[in-house]
């Protein structure tokens, strides 16, 4: 078999690894338009912040491609697919053939069409070149404005703040992280950022970037102006679908795939930030442009390219952020209202905030702030759609942990089929009668 992968980040690399694990002889080729191999783009803000060096950007051993006998075309853009001939044309007149093709083309940073957005020192943070550009300028700047108060914008702002830059974040929504969490928890995070000197302006948008050659200020639609020497557009990402679209593969919000991550062409699969996959808590197909989802999807797509018929369970939207030591983990649906049929459990104590959303006694979403240790346990309850009525009162308690869900594992054994769950249950006897211990 001849496997071709377009994209060299989380999904593409995970697919390549899975293909090789199961097929030692196959020809595997990976194409990426980026020259630097195997770097984790999620670490770019850590690089900007000076927390890590470029050396530590790699998420796989440097000899990964060689060790797995994967042929690479790096720094080469895939231009077109000839689906009849089953070939892909790269820039530089290279044509590669395939039996099975994976589109793991990822996403591109959203840009803003603003007067002045073409100036030097207006950046997005998506690839290594962007990060290097920002780092090269850091010594020359004192203040920066970040446009966008979502996860990406805030991470960009946090990186600059760690470099002792004065940062203002311009947020169109009424609160930060509006796609990720509810207003209450976002308020606590905004407080934390402001306490560390980051300015947060909500409900406003930039109207222009001014300056002669390079940036001098950002003008806002409320008439305010902010002097700055750098602008970062951190508005999120759009799926990079041009290759799929130009070859008439079906796309909607992202590339449309079935439960086997197969596109409208049975020989072509898609995974990662470009794929519109089943979302576990929403029960519909959408993009979850997240690292863990991309890795999982790359693996599942590869198994199906190998003909193993592995259905994808679906992705769970989940995020983890940490700003100045305040952690926040969120999953699934976080902003629904009681009126929409959700039961909401919540608890606040200082910067501690916990909220769990239930529908028919199943957890469909959560936000944990500050005390996040049990987030993973909750993730299992969401993923396996477990009826939690018997432990509902324990969910937000400080001592909630794995032990508290063991009665559920005993009761719904078939949902917790993973061997490791059963290993912990060997000596478990329901309703053990003994004196209370702790």
């Amino acid at each position: 078999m001849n496997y071709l992968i377009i994209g060299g980040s989380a999904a593409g690399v995970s697919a390549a690894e899975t293909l090789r694990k199961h097929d030692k002889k196959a020809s595997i080729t990976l194409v990426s338009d980026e020259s630097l191999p195997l770097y984790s783009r999620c670490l770019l803000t850590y690089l900007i912040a000076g927390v890590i060096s470029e050396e530590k950007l790699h998420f796989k051993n440097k000899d990964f491609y060689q060790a797995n006998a994967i042929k690479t075309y790096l720094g080469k853009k895939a231009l077109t697919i000839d689906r009849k001939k089953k070939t892909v044309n790269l820039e530089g007149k290279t044509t590669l053939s395939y039996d099975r093709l994976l589109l793991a083309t990822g996403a591109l940073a959203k840009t803003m069409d603003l007067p002045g957005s073409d100036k030097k020192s207006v950046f997005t943070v998506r690839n290594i070149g962007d990060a290097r550009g920002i780092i090269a300028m850091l010594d020359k700047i004192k203040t920066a404005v970040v446009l966008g108060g979502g996860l990406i914008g805030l991470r960009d702002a946090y990186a600059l703040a760690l470099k002792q830059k004065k940062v203002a974040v311009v947020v169109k929504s009424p609160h930060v992280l509006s796609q990720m969490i509810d207003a209450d928890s976002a308020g606590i995070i905004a407080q934390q950022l402001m306490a560390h000197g980051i300015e947060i302006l909500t409900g406003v948008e930039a109207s222009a970037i001014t300056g002669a050659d390079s940036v001098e200020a950002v003008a806002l639609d409320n008439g305010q102006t902010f002097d700055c020497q750098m602008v970062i557009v951190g508005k999120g990402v759009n799926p990079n679908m041009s290759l799929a679209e130009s070859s008439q593969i079906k796309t909607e919000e992202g590339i449309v795939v079935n439960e086997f991550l197969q596109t409208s062409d049975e020989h072509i699969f898609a995974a990662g930030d470009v794929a519109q996959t089943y979302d576990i808590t929403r029960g519909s197909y959408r993009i979850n442009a997240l690292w863990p989802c991309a890795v999982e999807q790359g693996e599942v797509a590869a198994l199906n390219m190998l003909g193993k018929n592995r259905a994808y369970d679906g992705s769970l939207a989940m995020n983890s952020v940490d700003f100045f030591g305040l952690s926040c983990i969120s999953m699934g649906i976080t902003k629904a209202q009681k009126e929409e049929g959700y039961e909401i459990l919540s608890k606040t104590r200082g910067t501690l905030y916990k909220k769990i959303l239930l529908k028919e006694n199943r957890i469909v979403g959560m936000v944990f702030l500050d005390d996040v240790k049990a987030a993973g346990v909750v993730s299992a309850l969401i993923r396996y759609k477990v009826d939690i009525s018997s432990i509902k009162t324990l969910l937000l308690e400080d001592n909630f942990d794995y032990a508290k869900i063991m009665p559920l594992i005993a009761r719904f054994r078939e949902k917790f089929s993973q061997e490791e769950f059963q290993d912990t249950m060997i000596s478990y006897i329901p309703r053990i009668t003994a004196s209370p211990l702790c």
Partner: protein
Amino acid sequence: MAVKKLSQKKDPQIKIFCDLSKCVACKTCELACAVEHSQSKDLERALSETTRPKKRVAVSAVGERALSIHCQHCQEAPCVSACMSGAMQKDPASGATIQDKDKCVGCWMCVMVCPFGAIVRDIENHIAVKCDLCPDRDDYACVAACPTGALFSGTKEEFEKKLKEKKVKK
């Protein structure tokens, strides 16, 4: 990118199990774990170390009994898939889930996905810590320290056999 302190324990069949009927929640395992992961590996001296040693095992109540729980070294480990820095890895020889501390940036993605809640945030050093199967010793500190014999290391079959024998004795 050599992973330091690769576990010497190469048999993927061997795991640490907890017998719920014997665990009395004394937390000796927690203490032994923290001491084992201190610089001095000595309780008295560990207490005065500048970064306090962190335990990677936790005792918790299950109904009216207790359980000592730590990383289960899952075959398909969600923490490895979720790790965006390549710090969490599977050791192909032992099947252990190992962590390259130098690569961890403390993003807590592993904490987010571990169904056992077995990954702990080391806030002082801003890295995740978890059971590393005691690479500096031949046995496991928690199992060796357990005063009731609730903690057991061996294969699943051996553990099941041990539980059966106990029943017969009664």
